[in-house]
């Protein structure tokens, strides 16, 4: 017999699916969009902005998709040879994928933010929770 350490919460915090009358339908993991990404050793000229979300931040990822930083749209106007590592905002705020969508919207409004990155407890990028992309 095995005992799952951390129980159901350890599962949902990874953004893994659940079932049931409520299930994971109200968790923010079901509402994220995929932001444009860049690697830490890239330059600004390497960054390809997603045309579907041209005003969102670019996620700077390390090995195993761990979120290391964010490039704000204004950083993309820097000279093409600028290293991403110098232009990024390190360690941006994140939330976990099991947070309820209503709580995320309330917090974004309270903090006057348009978006927040969603990562697992280990820091792997799940997606971007963007107010204009959440329709509840």
């Amino acid at each position, binding site marked *: *017999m*095995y*005992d*799952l*350490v*951390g*129980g*159901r*919460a*350890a*599962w949902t915090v*990874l953004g*893994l*699916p*659940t*079932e*049931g*009358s*409520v*299930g*994971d339908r109200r968790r923010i993991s079901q509402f994220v969009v995929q932001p444009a990404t860049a690697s830490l050793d890239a330059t600004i000229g390497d960054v390809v902005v997603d045309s579907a979300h041209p005003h969102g931040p670019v996620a700077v990822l390390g090995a195993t998709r761990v979120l290391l930083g964010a490039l704000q749209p204004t950083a993309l106007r820097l000279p093409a040879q600028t290293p991403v590592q110098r232009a990024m905002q390190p360690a941006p705020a994140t939330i976990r994928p099991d947070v309820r969508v209503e709580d995320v919207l309330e917090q974004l409004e309270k903090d006057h933010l348009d978006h927040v990155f969603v990562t697992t407890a280990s820091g792997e990028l799940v997606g971007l929770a963007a107010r204009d992309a959440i329709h509840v």
Partner: protein
Amino acid sequence: MATRIDVPLARSVLADGAQLVDVLPAVIYRQEHLPGAMSVPLESFATTSITDHLDPSRAVVVYCFDQH
């Protein structure tokens, strides 16, 4: 005595055919549970044994809400 395992290992054990048991209250189970889990609430242990619900030839993964 149960062996404590993390989520990646649990997924591997489940992929190999283990049974998954949710011991949360039935009302909580109905709202949300892990895929494929069966409900055997802790409070039911007073009248039944967990083994009444399980195939003894297969491994079992048990979970609660968080730490327990």
